[in-house]
């Protein structure tokens, strides 16, 4: 795949505020939104293809930047509420404006993004600077005319969905009905109507009566892409629950439970932790689900609850290092996963700024690196390899020299084309495939 590192969000102090926390393409792929730890959202727009320069087709440039969330203080609990954007989801476009939902730990906001490229000129009562004219100088009436101006992108908060969550919001998902959406925190899932901010319906509640009995939390959730009554949520114990909202108002009873029995030969004190699902995504077809746990990505068929249909090892060489990774908290890292537009390739991030792609048809996989050295504009990405002792080829990286602070948690795939967005700490990389990529 050809790589080009485009926009780098370098924070001035080097750490903290500008770590990218979420990446999301809109439904056409024309826009790419990123959220960061400082509560900002940056939207990129793809330049239309130019016939003059075919190679500059489809570069993404900054379209708009706005402050979505501010840090807050919860007086009742005496705790800070982080402004970090956990998730962004685009609404399907229904008119000239674009809309997206962004959420931090507690509050979801609906933002409307509009363009202004014309402005009226020739007012009767005001002059060009807006000052009132001396009426005695006005001798004739004119009709104001719209004249072109530099493009201005305006972003306004249209709805604020607050006070719906006691625990930290980890997912939001817009329903295919385009009227409702859900937000999930550690213990509850709420259903909202996009136009109503003062109430929401609780559709899943796994909080135990006695908090001492709490052993499982919700880690991610998503609506089915076509069936507006179906949604799935994943848990920290590695299970998926498909729920049907037609069955009952409170969907505590799942319609289907997807769980793979534990492999007794691999059992350890860390088995549960590494089985915790960090992300779940429906395929575009709606027939499969993709889950990510600490060491693998799995493809599940909605019709088969007993086990996944495909399992791919992301970085199995870490299996012997779980205690160290527990000690430095890396074992709790939540990696996301993504489908390509045709559901034939899946992608997920790893450590050392590596990310992995698995071709479901050819069963080939590739490891690539998102770094400044490897991604000069137009540079072709070179596949990387991690060696686990034994034979070591040139350019291989040994497991012990992996940088665990460079983690690629957030990745996104263009809905139709082979364009991917990779968030590596505070840098955003966008890679495009000029010709059909071949997996090595």
């Amino acid at each position, binding site marked *: 795949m050809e790589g080009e590192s485009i926009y780098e969000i370098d924070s001035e102090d080097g750490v903290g505020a500008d770590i990218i926390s979420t990446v999301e393409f809109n439904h056409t792929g024309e826009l790419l939104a990123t959220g960061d730890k400082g509560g900002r959202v940056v939207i990129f727009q793809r330049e239309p293809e130019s016939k003059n320069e075919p190679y500059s087709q489809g570069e993404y440039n900054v379209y708009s930047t706005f402050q979505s969330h501010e840090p807050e203080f919860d007086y009742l609990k005496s705790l800070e509420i982080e402004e970090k954007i956990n998730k962004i989801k685009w609404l399907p476009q229904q008119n000239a404006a674009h809309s997206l939902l962004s959420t931090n730990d507690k509050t979801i906001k609906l933002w409307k993004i509009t363009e202004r490229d014309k402005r009226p000129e020739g007012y009767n009562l005001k002059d060009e600077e807006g000052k009132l004219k001396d009426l005695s100088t006005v001798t004739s009436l004119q009709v104001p005319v719209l004249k072109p101006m530099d493009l201005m992108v305006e972003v306004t908060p249209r709805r604020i969905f607050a006070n*719906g969550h006691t625990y*930290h919001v980890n997912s939001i998902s817009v329903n295919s009905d385009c009227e409702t959406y859900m937000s999930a925190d550690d213990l509850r899932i709420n259903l909202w109507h996009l136009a109503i901010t003062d109430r929401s319906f609780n559709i899943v509640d796994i909080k135990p009566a006695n908090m001492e009995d*709490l052993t499982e*939390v919700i880690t991610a959730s998503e609506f089915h892409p076509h069936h507006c009554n179906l949604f799935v949520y994943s848990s920290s114990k590695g299970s998926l629950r498909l729920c049907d909202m037609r069955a009952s108002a409170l969907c505590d009873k799942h319609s289907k439970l997807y769980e793979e029995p534990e492999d007794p030969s691999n059992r350890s*004190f860390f088995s549960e932790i590494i089985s915790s699902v960090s992300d779940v995504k429906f395929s575009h077809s709606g027939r499969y689900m993709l889950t990510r746990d600490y060491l693998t990505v799995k493809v599940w068929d909605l019709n088969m609850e007993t086990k996944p249909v495909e399992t791919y090892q992301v970085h199995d060489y870490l299996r012997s290092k779980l205690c*160290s990774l527990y000690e430095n908290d890396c074992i709790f890292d939540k990696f996301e996963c993504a489908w390509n537009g045709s559901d034939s390739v899946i992608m997920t991030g790893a450590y050392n700024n590596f990310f992995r792609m698995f071709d479901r048809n050819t069963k080939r996989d590739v490891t690539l690196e998102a770094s400044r050295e490897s991604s000069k504009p137009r540079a072709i990405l070179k596949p990387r390899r991690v060696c686990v002792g034994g034979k070591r080829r040139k350019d291989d990286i040994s497991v012990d020299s992996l940088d665990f602070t460079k983690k690629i948690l957030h990745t996104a795939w263009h809905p139709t084309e082979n364009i991917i967005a990779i968030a590596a700490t505070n840098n955003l990389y966008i890679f495009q495939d000029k010709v059909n990529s071949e997996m090595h």
Partner: protein
Amino acid sequence: MGEEEGLRQAQLLDTMFVRGLKRKCFDGEEDIEGTLAGFKAIPSYNLQRQSLLDMSLVKLQLCHMLVEPNLCRSVLIANTVRQIQEEMTQDGTWQMINTQNAGHASLDRLVSTDILCRSSREQTEGKHGPGYSTFPKDFEETQSQDSSEIMSTVSSGQAPRNLQSNMWEMESPQENRGNFQKSLDQIFETLENKSPNSVEDLFSEVDNSYYDLDTMLTGMMSNTKMGHCDVLETFPSQTTTNSNSNCKSDLNELDHIVEILVES
């Protein structure tokens, strides 16, 4: 614990925890050496498991956090602690650890585990380490004490449950309960001075069971009896040295919070 030390310790544990190594019972094929090796393997497993337990308890400490801790992480760590404790209770080693190590800081235990692991490695090279000769004696003692110590095992097993309830319910990790109570009173005063409707608005869309003042205050009152850090002291840990500095920083934070409230 020093970072390097902790990492080394964790790396040692990695070799033990690969592939779910539970009971490395060396089978008869190694004969006498096998039996000796068996004694050697079981204690180092136990001690390393203890080290994992300590590490987990240290991770669960919430005493000086200003941001709400990640609930998923806490649940996973607590489940790990529970797993270890269940296994240790079945072994009967739970009681042994408590009586042997009461009063020691966890840092010491981590170091001592390292020494024992080194000596057991030396033994594979034919040397005898200091840990080896004493351990089988303790091991036998444990077996005889096991039945009579069931009660104390149960009671110490309850402490982690309290830890969990404190952790989940008491999401505000204030050390100094008295000062917190005072500042909370001030918060309520400030709220009540505003228009009566605003207080209700504040609570109307919110999950009522959580923000129920009675529940919260009760939760806090029970915590005055046993806060997180008090509970952790039943498991030897280094919170005693940290808690004083935490108190000071918490007091400063409280002052800061009260300042904000008074100004508003």
